[in-house]
């Protein structure tokens, strides 16, 4: 009986995916748009921050690294709550009217994953810096150019940091549900839809979304891996 039912649910989910159900496609599209935007913003902040931490020596640097590493484990609901307080009508950024919009979801996810990108980038770039330091110093390369050089030459390894950030953003539900509100057709993404459909008992849709989510993460990683292989062959 139970076995049978599971089989039915799986085939319904597959059907939805194959049929290209428009509601499902819209949810998938928004999920990708939100999480990829979050990765972009997290990279803009996290990569230079990680690079700066990798290259500079200052008192308290060790503590800063420990804090940054710990922030990798930020609970999504706490980030969601903090962003909610910032963006709510009475909050400091309430004027912007961003609460319960996709933009708010991007902000929350970017905050969530910026520490992941920064911490992993710091490690990568510090190793590269140890290797390059003497040569770049001998060439008289200044601080800004050093950071740019390390990010560029470490780009294939840094891709891994970005993928870790993307995986985390695509998988989290706590932050986007608080600041996005899971509004049908507007702020509903895959994870919030899965949570909702599961609680409503629509297991076929929930499962279908689950498969799509996993497939997307696999495809994104496969593309990145291919790009890395090709790039490394060319750049050495």
């Amino acid at each position, binding site marked *: 009986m139970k076995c049978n039912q599971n089989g039915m649910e799986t085939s319904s989910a597959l059907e939805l995916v194959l049929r290209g159900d428009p509601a499902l496609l819209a949810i998938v599209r928004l999920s990708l748009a939100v999480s990829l935007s979050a990765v972009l913003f997290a990279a803009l902040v996290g990569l230079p921050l990680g690079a700066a931490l990798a290259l500079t020596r200052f008192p308290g640097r060790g503590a800063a690294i420990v804090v940054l590493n710990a922030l990798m484990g930020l609970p999504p609901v706490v980030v969601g709550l903090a962003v909610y307080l910032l963006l709510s009508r009475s909050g400091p950024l309430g004027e912007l009217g961003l609460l319960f919009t996709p933009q708010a979801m991007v902000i929350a996810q970017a905050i969530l994953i910026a520490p992941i990108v920064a911490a992993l980038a710091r490690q990568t770039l510090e190793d590269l810096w140890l290797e390059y330091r003497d*040569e770049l110093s*001998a060439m008289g390369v200044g601080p800004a*150019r050093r950071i740019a050089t390390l990010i560029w*030459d470490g780009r294939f390894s840094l891709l891994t940091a970005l993928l870790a950030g993307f995986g985390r953003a695509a998988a989290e539900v706590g932050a986007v549900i608080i600041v996005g509100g899971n509004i049908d057709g507007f702020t509903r993404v895959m994870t919030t839809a899965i949570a909702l459909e599961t609680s409503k008992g629509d297991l076929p849709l929930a499962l279908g979304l689950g498969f799509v989510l996993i497939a997307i993460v696999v495809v994104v990683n496969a593309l990145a891996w291919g790009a890395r292989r090709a790039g490394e062959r060319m750049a050495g």
Partner: protein
Amino acid sequence: MMRAPATDLPVRLDDASFAVGTVTIIDRMTLTFAPGAPTLVIGPNGAGKTTLLRLAMGLAAPTSGTVTFGGRERGPPLRRAFVFQRPVMLRRSVAANLRYALSAAGMPRRQHDGRIAELLALVGLTGIGDRPARRLSGGEQQRLALARALAREPEILFLDEPTASLDPAATKAVEDIVAQVAARGIKVVMSTHDLAKAKRLAGDIVLIHRGRVVETGPAEEFFAAPKTDAARRFIAGELLI
């Protein structure tokens, strides 16, 4: 890039020491590297050759005493260049490594291609500009490192055992380039623990041992009539202890 004051020469160490913790690696050295024939810094493994060159390049600051470049203390390397004992190539093509050095030295972009071709020809790497630099053989990387250093149009070029890991043919190739460079008026300061190499290229000899200058002088005098007992023993191939 600022090119004034225009010169890094002479490089002077004045009573300069370099210590790590309680270990003194360079012990109160006073030396001048001025325009002229190549200076060969010789001494056994661990004598402090690399550390001396790093001080003279400004990559490390003395823990006491001073190092000055054209009379100035510190400041970025303007017309100094360094080829490391184990050079590190950037993760880019051969040509892109040279392009990077040229733009770091402030050369306008439109002059890059011509200069890159010249440099590749000078070190005998013409035709492999597109290859990833890190895939080159050790000898090729050493020559590329030399080209990258020369891209800075240095007045003074530091070479830290540039031929230590090369076979005789590659060694000859590098030494020929160094001789050519020196003939163009670039001051060469090269370290080696190999007396035959020192004889072929010097100019002047600076023999160091355990972080101290043991003897300095023109190469001919140094090899024909060493003034110190330590130098005599080093030339005779005896262990210095």
